[in-house]
C-alpha cells in the first residue's frame, strides 16, 4: 500500500516512499476530514435523512469511501452544515509533485526591513503615482497605504522604506522631477484606465522620460501595476517589473529588496 520500499537510508531511517496516502492514525489508512454546507433543509426527520444522504453522496463523489457524517446541523431554513470523515483511495505520487520556483523569495516585513538595513544601509525610497488622466488610486493605495490590502499592510508600514505617494493624475514630468528630488530607489506607477491602450502608452512614456533624465546614471527601478497589464510585457514596455491583478504589498516589497538590496 505504501509504494515500493528500498533498503534503509544512511541514518537507518526507511527512505521516504514515492507514493503515499493521508495519515489518520495508521500508515496508509487514507483518513481525512472535510466540512461543507449544502443548500438543503434540516428540519423534519425526513429532511434530515435526505440531507445526510446528500452529504454522503457528495463525500462518495469526492472519493471518500466509506464516508461517515459525524455532524449535521441546520443553519436557517435552507442550509445544513456537515462534518464528514472518510477514507480516500487516492494516492499521492511524490515523484510527480512539481514546484514552480518564484523568481524572488517572498519575505516577511521584518525580513524586508532587515534586508534593506543590511543591503542598503539607509531607507529605501519608493515613489508612487497614478499618471496621466487616471484617477483610480485604489491600486496604488492598496500597495502603499498603511491600511494595505488582503490582510497585508502597505509599504508605508515597512520601517525601512520611505514612501512618497503622489496620488492621482500626476504628469510624467512632475513624476520624474520628484523622483530625482526624493532620490527614489523605485518608482511605482499604477494604471487602471486602459481605453485605447492608455496603460501601455503611459508606461512607455514614464520609461522613456526616466531614461532621458538619468542618461548615463543608474535610473531608479520602474515598476508598473494594474489589472490590464500582461506581466510578460516588461521588456517590451521598458519597465523593470509588471504586477497584475491581485498583487499584495508583500510581493512588491519582496521584489524591491530582491532587486535593490541584494544580500
Amino acid at each position, binding site marked *: 500500500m505504501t509504494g515500493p520500499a528500498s533498503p534503509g537510508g544512511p541514518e537507518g531511517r526507511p527512505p521516504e516512499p514515492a507514493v503515499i496516502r493521508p495519515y489518520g492514525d495508521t500508515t496508509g489508512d487514507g483518513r481525512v476530514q472535510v466540512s461543507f454546507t449544502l443548500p438543503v433543509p434540516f428540519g423534519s426527520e425526513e429532511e434530515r435523512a435526505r440531507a445526510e444522504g446528500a452529504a454522503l453522496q457528495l463525500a462518495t463523489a469526492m472519493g471518500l469511501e466509506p464516508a461517515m457524517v459525524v455532524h449535521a446541523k441546520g*443553519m*436557517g431554513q435552507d442550509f445544513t452544515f456537515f462534518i464528514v470523515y472518510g477514507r480516500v483511495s487516492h494516492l499521492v505520487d511524490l515523484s510527480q509533485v512539481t514546484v514552480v520556483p518564484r523568481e524572488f523569495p517572498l519575505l516577511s516585513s521584518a525580513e524586508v526591513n532587515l534586508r534593506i538595513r543590511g543591503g542598503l544601509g539607509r531607507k529605501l525610497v519608493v515613489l508612487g503615482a497614478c499618471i496621466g488622466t487616471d484617477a483610480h488610486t485604489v491600486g496604488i493605495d492598496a500597495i502603499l497605504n498603511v491600511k494595505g490590502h488582503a490582510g497585508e499592510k502597505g509599504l508605508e508600514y515597512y520601517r525601512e522604506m520611505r514612501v512618497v505617494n503622489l496620488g492621482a493624475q500626476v504628469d510624467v514630468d512632475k513624476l520624474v522631477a520628484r523622483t530625482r528630488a526624493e532620490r527614489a530607489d523605485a518608482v511605482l506607477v499604477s494604471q487602471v484606465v486602459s481605453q485605447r491602450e492608455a496603460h501601455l502608452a503611459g508606461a512607455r512614456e514614464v520609461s522613456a522620460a526616466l531614461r532621458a533624465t538619468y542618461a548615463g546614471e543608474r535610473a531608479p527601478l520602474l515598476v508598473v501595476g494594474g489589472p490590464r497589464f500582461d506581466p510578460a510585457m516588461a521588456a517590451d514596455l521598458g519597465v523593470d517589473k509588471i504586477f497584475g491583478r491581485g498583487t499584495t504589498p508583500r510581493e512588491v516589497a519582496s521584489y524591491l529588496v530582491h532587486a535593490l538590496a541584494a544580500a
Partner: protein
Amino acid sequence: MEPKLGLDQAVVRQARALAQAAGQPIVELARTHTTVSVERAVLRLAGLDGADEDGMPWVNRLVEAVRDSAGLEHGVALPAWDALLAGDYPGLGELARDAAAGRVKFHLPEGADATAARRAAAAALGRGIATIDARRAERDAMIRDTSDPPKPWIYLIVATGDIYEDIPQAQAAAREGADIIAVIRSTGQSLLDYVPEGATREGYAGTYATRENFRLMRAALDDVSRELGRYVRLTNYASGLCMPEIAALAGLERLDMMLNDCMYGIIFRDINPRRTFIDQRFSRQVHARAGIVINTGEDNYLTTADAVDAAHTVVVSQLLNEFFGKEAGLADAQLGLGHAFEINPDVPDSFVLELAHAQLVRELFPDAPLKYMPPTKHMTGNVFAGYLLDAFFNLAGVMTDQSILLIGMMTEGIHTPFLSDRDLALENARYVARAAARLGENFRPPPGGFVQQRAHQVLGEAVDLLRRIGRDGLLGAIADGTFGITRRPADGGRGLDGVITRADGYFNPATEILEGAS
C-alpha cells in the same frame, strides 16, 4: 458597574483634561474652516440628490460651480439660494444642472437678497433636519414595537459588493442572531471625493455606501426586525473624504451606527489631517442629532503595532475621540469607543493582559457602548486554533462587560466568511455567553496584582503620551508619527485642496440648527 481596578480618579481626571487641552485647538480649527464635503452635506440635507450622466453627484457639480465663481469662504448656502431665488428655479436640482452647464453666475448676495437667501436656505435645512428627527423617532418606535436586544450586541459583517446579494445574507445573519449588521464598503471608497449614486452591484471587497443602498438595506432589516421581534441595527462608514455627506445620508436613511474615527483617515488612508478634523466635527454633529452611535477605530492601532507596546495609544485615541465626540454633541451612549483583542497568543499571560486592557477601557468609559474587536493579526489559517482564540476573545468580552462584540471568524484573513463560518462563530459566542455570564461579577483582580498593575501602567503611559501631545500639539504629534507608525504632516495627504478658511459672515444653515440644538 462596579470598579475593579482601583484606578486613581485623579489620574483619570488628569487624562481627560489633557485630552481636552490637546483637542481644543483642533475644535477651533474646525470652527474657523469649512470643506467641500461639509458644503456638499448642506446641499444633501436640503434635498439635492442624483448625479450627472457621468455619475458625478449634483452636489459636487453645484459646490464646484459656486467655488469657481463666488468662492466657498462664506459657505455654499448664500450664493446657491440667492441664485435659486433670482433664477426662480423650482429646486436645487434644476439649479445644479444649469450651474454645471455654466449657465449660472454665482455671487455673494447682500442686503435684502442676503436676508431672503438666508431665510430660504434655513427653511430648506429645517426640513432636512426635521427628516432626520423623524427618522430618529421612527427608530424609537421600531424599537418599542419590536424590542431592544440585551447587550452585548452581536455585530456581524456582510460584504459581497452587490447590495442585492448583501440583503439576503444580512437577513440570514440577523435570523442567526446578529443584533448589528455592518456593510463593509468597497476598497478605496474612502478616497473618493464624491458619494456614488444608486443601488450598486459591483464593489471590491465590499459594497459602496450610497443613499439607495442604505435605504434598501434598512428596509430589509426592518422586515426581519418585525419578523424576529428584535430591532436589528445597521452600520456603515462615515469616514474618508466624504465623511460629512455620508453622515447626512445615514441620518436621512435611519442607519443606526456609523464607523467614525477622529484620526483613522489620517493615519491609515493618508487623508489630510485638517480636512479630517473639520469633516469629523460636522459629521458628528449630524450623528448626534440622528441618534446614531459612532464606532471609533482604535483596533487599527493594534494591527500595525504590537498590542502590548501600543495599548496606551488606544486609550489616548479613545480619550480624544470622547472629547471630540462630546464637543460635537454626542452623548455617552453614542460613543462606541473601539478596542481589540490582538496580543500575540505566544506571549505569556496574553489573555490576562487582554483582560486588564479590556477592563481598563470599561472603567474609563463606564457609560459608553464599547465596541470590542476580535483577533485578526494572529489568525494564521489554522482555523481550529483560530476558533479557540475567538472563544478566548468572547470570554474576555463577557468577563469585562463589553457592549458590542464584533464576532470573530475562524477563517479571518482567508476568505469572506462562509455561511458555516458565521454559524460556527455565533455558536462559539453563544456558548461562552451562556457558560460564563456570571464570571464577570466573580472576577475580582486582587489589589496590586498583575491585572491592576498592568491597567495602572497603561493608564500612566497614556497620560505621558497625552502630555507629549499637549506639548507638540495634536497636529505636530500626528506629523511626528505618534499614532500608527506613519508620519502625517498637517499640509500633506489627500483633500487639503478641499479645505477653506471661513470668512466673516460665513453661513451654514445646517450648523446653525445643529449647534442651536446642543
